[in-house]
């Protein structure tokens, strides 16, 4: 070997350090070059005491350096010790000026003029060395900075934070403790940040702790001030310090100087690498954020793997055993690469995904191999996963009364998307009609995938719209007949209180509700009075179309709602051209008209209905209500809850609003699309088959769910100590009584960190919810949307 080193690793972030540690452990001659005067500059520059996450959770760690979620300081300390103990050869203050050559013959020139030679180069420089800077006039002034080490360094200053990603918001929130902080936001909300950070910043703005300029853009920096263009004109904001956190970009110039080309001109494009992380320059490998993988765990794994690949060991990726276990569990005789190929070739929904994307969503998926006649899921099950057919055939029982009437779908197609979209119970039972191989993608994984890959969303929507129209409008019509209607149909999203249909208007589109719920109201005596409530699965507006009448009522979204808007002209053509479709639609129309008369609530009841909608019951699947005309305030419901849940009640009977005698206590509504599930780092919140939203043991107590819940029903609590048996308390007075563990000793004995706790509807306890079972007077009831109207009639004032 002519070169000094077998491997030169450039950049000592997680990827570089992990590679160096593995090379050192295997005794491979190596050097780790770092531009800064310390290792791991990116993590080093994290805000002090920042909690570092270890996502993706299920992915096993494969590195000679340890890593688990924790504080910045602990992690840096652990890695520094790891690098020392493995005997990594580190060269600090070594900025690389150029890399020339190829496999077996690389010359690396340092900024000082020194030159090193190496057989292989691992480029792990990340993107944080190339922070995006402000380009406005005055940006070079000294009080403009691009990072924040320790928020406690600043006291009593006026500080402007530009950038509303997580870094910017985390800085703003930390600085706001001791400073007057102003946040500049180009838009009105916070789409670039995690929902939890967005919620925190919005709360701080509401409280007045932070000032925010929305729909505003920085125009110029002047000494002591920032000039903004806002929706109301130009504004000049006085400031002592500007912190701009506007992201980082691949250091394109340097990378190109090494001979690597970028796939596109976009400033956010990443250099392409092979499956062994090798770039188009033989022997030059790229790992970590520069290769497009910003998560620390990916970086650590890639560092390890790249060394193995350089040594010629084709080790399988870290998640291989997990994926293989899924295949084995379902008894599918195939290797992981075969499975990935099959998914990409046979399932059009996932055809556009890269291998890594497929691997990632496979971690959140399961395989099933049902025999002919096996049920996949049943009608009314509360599962929200999506199934794809890799092999075989599935029958969907479209008529619950007649299980033999089935629509069959074959390999390549997917099913179960209605539950995924609406967040409600399964609408039909599905059965394998032939031996099949199914891929079940978990709801959270699917939601993430739909959000990040537009192609998947488009493919899913196209098919779902067609099926929903057929199911709900014209089950007897064939695909060909409906083709025009489906083609012109659009998915429209509505925010709470948005109007779908305005009373008196002359438009005549039909809305098929596929997610959320709406209220129907009429103007009575100059006031909007709510007369009905409709959850997803219903449709509104077809009467105006069929009868050529004005809109007779107003329809408003009760919660975030999605509807399929069907163009009336195409639909009218359809019913004129195909009498059998018209007969079908009219038959349903009449039966629903009768049903409407039965469903419609009285004028007083409308007030109660409106009240319940305001309490978020429009998105509830199961909610605890208390009829105060019967409630004797014994709090046995709270005690029962505490007794069955480690001494911590998940409901507060007294708190919460009341209308007439209907009281909505502070207690989980088990939302159709649970807000708490939106941003759970360890993926600890789930929905059970029977509908309960619950938190499992993986909870890390980060509090995201508590902040995301709009109804304040999640609390962070430590587990209390064990209690004596009921009889010892009753007869011997030992220990705290039922639901009473508030004693200082009891609290002191609580061990371990705090965990999020919420109502789990007494999942796993025979007999159902303890609160309702323990109510002696029948005041406590649990209600689902289907029963709202009947309950309202019973208790309306």
């Amino acid at each position: 070997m002519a070169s000094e080193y077998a491997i030169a690793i450039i950049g000592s972030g997680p990827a570089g350090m992990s590679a160096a540690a593995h090379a050192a452990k295997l005794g491979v001659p190596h050097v780790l070059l770092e531009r800064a005067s310390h290792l791991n500059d990116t993590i080093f520059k994290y805000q002090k005491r920042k909690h570092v996450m270890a996502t993706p959770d299920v992915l096993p760690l494969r590195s000679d350096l340890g890593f688990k979620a924790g504080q910045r300081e602990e992690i840096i300390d652990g890695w520094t010790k790891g690098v020392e103990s493995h005997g990594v050869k580190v060269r600090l203050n070594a900025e690389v000026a150029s890399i020339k050559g190829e496999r077996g013959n690389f010359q690396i020139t340092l900024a000082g003029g020194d030159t090193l030679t190496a057989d292989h180069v691992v480029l792990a420089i990340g993107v944080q060395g190339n922070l995006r800077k402000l380009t406005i006039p005055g940006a070079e002034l000294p009080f403009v900075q691009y990072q924040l080490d320790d928020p406690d360094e600043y006291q009593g200053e006026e500080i402007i934070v530009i950038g509303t990603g997580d870094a910017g918001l985390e800085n703003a929130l930390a600085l706001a403790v001791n400073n007057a902080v102003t946040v500049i936001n180009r838009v009105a909300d916070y789409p670039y940040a995690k929902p939890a950070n967005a919620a925190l910043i919005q709360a701080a703005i509401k409280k007045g702790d932070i000032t925010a300029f929305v729909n505003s853009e920085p125009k110029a920096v002047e000494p002591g001030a920032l000039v903004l263009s806002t929706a109301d004109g130009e504004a000049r904001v006085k400031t002592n310090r500007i912190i701009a956190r506007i992201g980082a970009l691949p250091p394109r110039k340097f990378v190109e100087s090494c001979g690597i080309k970028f796939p596109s001109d976009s400033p956010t494009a990443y250099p392409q690498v092979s499956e062994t992380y090798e770039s188009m320059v033989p022997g030059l490998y790229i790992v970590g954020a520069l290769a497009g993988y910003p998560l620390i765990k990916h970086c650590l794994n890639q560092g390890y793997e790249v060394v193995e690949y350089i040594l010629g060991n084709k080790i399988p990726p870290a998640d291989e055993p997990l994926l293989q276990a899924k295949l084995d569990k379902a008894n599918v005789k195939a290797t992981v690469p075969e499975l990935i190929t099959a998914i990409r070739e046979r399932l059009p929904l996932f055809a556009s995904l890269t291998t890594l994307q497929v691997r990632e969503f496979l971690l959140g998926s399961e395989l099933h191999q049902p025999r002919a006649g096996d049920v996949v899921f049943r009608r009314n099950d509360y599962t929200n996963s999506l199934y794809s057919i890799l092999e075989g055939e599935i029958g969907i029982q479209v008529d619950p009364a007649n299980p033999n009437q089935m629509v069959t779908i074959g390999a390549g197609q997917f099913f179960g998307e209605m539950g995924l979209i609406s967040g409600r119970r399964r609408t039909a039972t599905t059965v394998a009609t032939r031996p099949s191989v199914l891929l079940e993608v978990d709801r959270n994984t699917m939601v993430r995938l739909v959000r990040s890959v537009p192609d998947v969303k488009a493919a899913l929507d196209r098919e779902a719209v067609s099926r929903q129209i057929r199911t709900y409008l014209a089950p007897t019509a064939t695909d060909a007949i409906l083709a025009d209607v489906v083609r012109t149909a659009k998915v429209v999203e509505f925010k709470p209180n948005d109007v779908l249909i305005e009373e008196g208007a002359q438009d005549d589109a039909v809305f098929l509700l596929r997610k959320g719920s709406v209220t129907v109201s009429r103007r009575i005596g100059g006031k909007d009075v709510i007369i009905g409530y409709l959850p997803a699965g219903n449709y509104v507006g077809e009467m105006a179309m069929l009868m050529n009448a004005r809109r007779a009522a107003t329809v408003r979204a009760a919660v975030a709602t999605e509807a399929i808007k069907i163009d009336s002209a195409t639909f009218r053509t359809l019913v004129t051209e195909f009498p059998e479709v018209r007969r079908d639609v009219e038959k349903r129309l009449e039966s629903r008209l009768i049903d409407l008369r039965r469903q419609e609530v009285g004028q007083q009841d409308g007030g109660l209905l409106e009240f319940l909608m305001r309490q978020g019951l429009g998105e509830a699947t199961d909610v605890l209500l208390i009829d105060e005309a019967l409630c004797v305030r014994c709090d046995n419901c709270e005690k029962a809850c505490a007794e069955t849940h480690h001494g911590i009640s998940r409901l507060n009977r007294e708190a919460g609003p009341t209308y007439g005698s209907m009281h909505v206590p502070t207690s989980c509504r088990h939302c159709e699309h649970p807000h708490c599930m939106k941003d759970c780092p360890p993926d600890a919140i789930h929905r059970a088959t029977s509908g309960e939203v619950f938190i499992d043991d993986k909870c890390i107590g980060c509090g995201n769910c508590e902040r995301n819940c709009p109804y304040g029903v999640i609390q962070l609590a430590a587990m209390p100590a064990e209690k004596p048996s009921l009889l010892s308390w009753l007869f011997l007075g030992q220990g705290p009584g039922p639901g009473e563990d508030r004693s200082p000793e009891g609290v002191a004995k609580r061990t371990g960190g705090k965990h999020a706790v919420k109502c789990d509807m007494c999942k796993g306890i025979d007999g159902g919810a303890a609160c309702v079972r323990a109510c002696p007077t029948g005041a406590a009831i649990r209600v689902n949307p289907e029963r709202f109207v009947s309950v309202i009639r019973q208790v309306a004032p």
Partner: protein
Amino acid sequence: MVHAASKPPGEASAPAPDTQHQSFLVYDRLLYLKIAVAATIVAIVLYLAHRPDGTPYGGTWLGYGLGTVGALLILWLMWFGYRKRSYTANQGKLEAWLSAHVYLGLSLLVIATLHTGFHFGWNIHTLAYALMCVVILSGACGVFFYVYCPPLMTQNRRGATMTQMMTRIAALNDEITSKAMGLDNATVAILRRSTETTIVGGSFWQQLAGHYPDCTTAAALKAMTKIGTADGARADALRQIRMLLDEKAQLLGRARRDLGYKAMMDAWLYVHVPLSFGLLAALFAHVLSVFIFW
């Protein structure tokens, strides 16, 4: 015209959880009332049909039979206190138990009376019977309060929680204190008494009776009304203080009434529970003495 759709073919009609919403008094279409009435009728018919050798009393076969049924019933009724607190046990809804507890408890009055054969005296047997009657009657009072108080409580609360009412009272106190600045010392002293010693609860009897003769706020309001008119800024301050005091008095009244209702719903238990334990002891003595001395 906009209208509601019935269940489309695939639409879920969720498996109905038990959302039957009704008072414990009419639970399951009065099932337990029916059982209790049936048991009572059977007991009366047996009693009327029974022709013992002497007068009817506890020592005949029917007397023993009714006594055994009554004693077992007492034990079962008392088990309610345990059942109420065993939250994890899957023994049906507590509402069903309460419904049964109420109606079977009332039927015990007839069954036990027939068991006595109307023989009473100054002895342990009649003591047990008397205790039982008091326990049952106190229970009947409880039922009355459980039906009477809840709607009144909701009405009285007007949607506010007790904490909210207390917070508002504290805020009113602060406002009164600040408005009182600049008034003469005597007036300030009266107002200070009101803001510094606001009694909401008091003793259990006071809560139950809702009688607060020493209410400092009522006194202050009375005193302020007596001062009557004044001039200029002082008149303004006095008027505002009167309004604040009035609001506080209203709130205090509501908070005290709330506690009063709660006390009513609790009071009967102070008789019902201790005496039922007394009854248990007397019952034990009664049964023991019957077997030893009869």
